[in-house]
């Protein structure tokens, strides 16, 4: 056998073993699944998701807190006005009584 025949024999086309194509496809599919699952299991992914969620919730919480404080403040203000009104009303009443009594004594 000369050199040319050896090369020709080495490079000759041979059919793939049976189920070769099926095995390749199955392996490729398995690797793809593993890659996808790894991405979701990565801590950095969860950290990023948590960060986004917190960042989205902070403004909502701040606004909610501000609304609550505003409601409390307005309620306190309303009570303050009522308290001052009652105070002044009772002082007015007292003054009227004193005036009536003074007038009676003068007569």
């Amino acid at each position, binding site marked *: 056998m000369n050199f040319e025949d050896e090369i020709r024999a080495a490079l000759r086309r041979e059919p793939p073993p049976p189920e070769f194509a099926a095995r390749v496809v199955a392996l490729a599919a398995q690797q793809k699944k593993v890659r996808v699952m790894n991405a979701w299991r990565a801590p950095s992914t969860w950290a990023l998701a948590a960060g986004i969620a917190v960042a989205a919730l902070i403004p909502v919480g701040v606004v909610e807190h501000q609304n609550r*404080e*505003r409601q*409390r*403040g*307005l309620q*306190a*203000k309303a*009570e*303050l*006005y*009522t*308290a*001052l*009104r*009652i*105070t*002044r*009303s*009772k*002082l*007015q*009443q*007292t*003054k009227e*009584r*004193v*005036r*009536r*009594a003074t007038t009676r004594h003068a007569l």
Partner: protein
Amino acid sequence: MKRPLIFTLPLLCFRLAAQQPPFDFKSLDKFDSMTEHKTKITLDGDMLKLAGKFLGSDDDKDKDVDSIKNLVNNLKGIYIRNYEFDKDGQYTQADIEPLRAYLKQQQWTKIVEQQDGKELSEVYVQPIANEKFGGVAIIAAETRELTVVYISGAMNLSDLEKLGGNMGIPDVDLSDLKDLNNLKKAAPKKEKKDD
């Protein structure tokens, strides 16, 4: 840094005393179930500060809102109890006695006492230096109505006069109630600086 107990203890006691409510208004809570017509207002220092922040906001167009703010800034607490009863004899003078005793114990001065039959009005102030009050208390008792007002904090009657006609508060001339000579006599000799 550790502080010796001898320094910490008085400070703690002082803080506890400062946080104590001025008068136990729970003694009047028994009237809650006797009437549906009642007004109970408790505004402590924190709530007054919060209310003060909202004075002048929204619909407060009054030019004298600053007067109210100045007054409120000096107050430590406002406590109002107002009960309107459906029939006579729902309360007795004994019900008010604990408050009177408290005011007497705290050396408040009664500047007005007016009784006309079953109607009674009493105004107390807590004299402090510089013709100022440390607080004002009012007991107004009628046949079917009982009102107790307790305002704690530095003020004078002119502060209340300034409020006349503002924010729906009735206009009142309080000059007749001024009796600063009595206050001067009753004021403690040792002058204290206002906080």
